[in-house]
């Protein structure tokens, strides 16, 4: 509500119509003061349409501002966000008198906004004074003054340039990347600019908010959403509180899903041989995705084949390879790169698995990959299909060759370690010492070596050892005599 309204015209001046309008508080924050501007000669020039923040920080202080225009037209002067009862006066510099001539004032009571508004028919230099009524002031809160005058320079918009991502990136969903930019404004301090970020998954047709009103730090860490696309773009918008500008990615980039898509297939080869033979079966991978590691369980029939060993080969030759039999009927193969290397897209053999054929002629087993896991360099699981291979037994069985070693304990020579080595994995092994059955344990699986300790009686003069082993349909035997 107005407390005082002063509306006056000098007789040599055209009419300036004035109105007082109650305005909502302005929320922008400014940080500069323009002291000394305590006289009209010290007035601070203000641009048209740009809020100016300053303070009446002591009683009796006044702030002078000025603008110059060579055009006539609409004039609006607002004084807002007042901490106390401040008033404004508008003067025109009369070149004839070389002094100021009062034009208009706004004297609302209390902390109400002040407004001078009307048609300006004069040109030249104009002066605005902001002062506290009855020396009102605030040393902790500021006011905002905005003058919009004809022919004035309008508030310059800010500028922003997005520097990343600008196209070509492949960003994994869930990963965090920096959106970087450079933002500036001709009139606004950098720290007073606010940034908002959006992304598009369709080359900028639609924009999805990422964050708003972020401080101007030059970088914003973005956790990439699980919105896979090859048409991703980012847009950054800068605001000086009045004007905005934006910049978007120059080209599209890719967002990969948590579960990258692609056709990958792990397949086992085939093999055939006579019972007792050992054959190698290839494990191949056709991968569209870049692969870092894989694990698979190759299920086989333990009555037909037994796993002997394996190694990474050809395309997978740089990968660390390990394999072991689990549950008696699966070979668990684990292959991975220890360093930064990866297996690029391609097709071909990556490993070779050796099996001993222990089944009878005509027997066959599938080699079925199960529980197969393929992962990419970001440790993301890849989709993978599997294809089983097979091994068949054919031809005349090859019998195992057995070797016996009997090592007398030097401290008690009638205590003997018996070792039986077979040329191939055995289905069964029977060992006797002086006619008594000996329980053997396999101490070296890859080399098919079995072991036991027997204690001959003190009066014994010798230990006769006999071993019989079967592998597939082949049978081998060996004998040894230890004399005491």
């Amino acid at each position, binding site marked *: 509500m107005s407390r005082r309204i002063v509306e006056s015209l000098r007789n040599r001046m055209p009419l300036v119509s004035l109105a007082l309008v109650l305005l909502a508080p302005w929320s922008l924050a400014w940080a500069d003061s323009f002291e000394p501007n305590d006289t009209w000669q010290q007035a601070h020039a203000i641009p048209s349409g740009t809020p100016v923040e300053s303070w009446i920080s002591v009683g009796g202080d006044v702030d002078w501002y000025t603008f110059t225009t060579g055009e006539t037209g609409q004039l609006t002067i607002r004084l807002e966000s007042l901490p106390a009862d401040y008033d404004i006066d508008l003067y025109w510099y009369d070149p004839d008198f070389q002094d100021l001539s009062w034009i208009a004032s706004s004297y609302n009571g209390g902390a109400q906004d002040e407004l001078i508004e009307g048609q300006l028919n004069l040109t030249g230099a104009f002066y605005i004074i902001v002062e506290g009524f009855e020396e009102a002031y605030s040393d902790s809160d500021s006011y905002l003054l905005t003058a919009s005058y004809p022919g004035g320079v309008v508030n310059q918009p800010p500028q922003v340039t997005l520097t990343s991502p600008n196209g070509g990136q492949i960003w994994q969903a869930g990963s965090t990347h920096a959106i970087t930019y450079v933002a500036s404004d001709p009139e606004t301090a950098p720290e007073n600019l606010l940034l908002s970020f959006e992304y598009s998954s369709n080359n900028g047709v639609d924009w999805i908010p990422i964050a708003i009103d972020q401080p101007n730090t030059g970088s914003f860490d973005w956790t990439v959403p699980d919105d896979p696309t090859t048409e991703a773009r980012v847009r950054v918008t800068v605001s000086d509180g009045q004007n905005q500008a934006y910049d978007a990615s120059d080209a599209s980039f890719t967002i990969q899903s948590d579960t990258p898509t692609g056709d990958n297939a792990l397949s086992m080869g085939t093999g055939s041989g006579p019972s007792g033979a050992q054959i190698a079966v290839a494990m191949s991978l056709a991968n569209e995705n870049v692969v870092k590691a894989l694990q698979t369980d190759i299920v086989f029939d333990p009555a037909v084949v037994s796993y002997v060993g394996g190694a990474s080969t050809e395309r997978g030759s740089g990968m660390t390879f390990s394999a072991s039999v689990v549950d008696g009927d699966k070979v668990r193969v684990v292959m991975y790169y220890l360093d930064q290397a990866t297996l690029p897209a391609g097709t071909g053999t990556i490993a070779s698995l050796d099996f001993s054929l222990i089944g009878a002629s005509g027997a066959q087993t599938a080699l079925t990959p199960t529980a197969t896991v393929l992962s990419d360099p970001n440790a993301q699981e890849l989709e993978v299909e599997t294809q089983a291979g097979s091994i068949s037994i054919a031809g005349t069985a090859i019998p195992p060759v057995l*070797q*016996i*070693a*009997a*090592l*007398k*304990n*030097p*401290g*008690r*020579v009638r*205590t003997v*370690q018996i*070792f039986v*080595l077979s*040329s191939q994995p055995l289905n069964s092994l029977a060992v006797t010492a002086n006619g008594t059955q000996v329980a053997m344990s396999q*101490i*070296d699986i890859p*080399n098919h*070596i079995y*072991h036991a*300790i027997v*204690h001959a*009686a*003190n009066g014994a003069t010798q230990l006769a050892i006999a071993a019989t082993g079967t592998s597939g349909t082949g049978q081998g035997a060996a004998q040894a005599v*230890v004399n005491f």
Partner: protein
Amino acid sequence: MKPRIRPARQGGALRYAQTALLIFLSLQGCSSDRERAAAPEDHTAVEWTELAWADYEQLNYTRALSRFDSAIAEDAAYGPAYTGRGWARLALGLSANDFMGAVSSFDDAAARQQVGSEVPAGRSAARLALGGAELANAILDAVNARNLAPQFVFAHRPSFDGKDLRLIEAFAKAGQADWAGALSVADQVEASGIQQGNPGTYVVGGAAYTTFEGAVLAHLNKLSTSHAG
């Protein structure tokens, strides 16, 4: 002249009677070494142990064990008797319990300040006989015995010497399927010429073997025949 001795094992009543007689003779002041030696029951732990080792050297392990027991009965703190008990138990062993008993006796000897090489040497053989997890300890004992006596010869069975300690170590490594380790030690007893990864060297006694492991076992078998014990 060997002293006459009493039987190693005796009933409690007779033992008490002998003790009473010894006390009586002592009180009369007429005892002498000759008189005590003449009494079949009267030996110190040292004497029992000496008698036991004599039995051991004559391959009479049963009586040796009995006399080591008597020595311990005379003086439970007499460490050498435990060493002998361990060796006798080792010689008589036919089961895991027997060899564990031997190991225990060697442990008892060590606990009574028996710091010579005979204790770890005998214990290494007992542990080799046990196999399994004891193989690692057998290796440690054999190495320890060799360190204590680089020119080790077992005084009561001179055929058991430093080579046997190396064989125990090699055989224990073989029991652990440590073929390269076994060969490394065995080659110090007798060089084989076997080189892992060089199949042309897998020859033992003129016979060629297709695998390194087979050649190592053949070499160990040969050393067992020619050197063990």
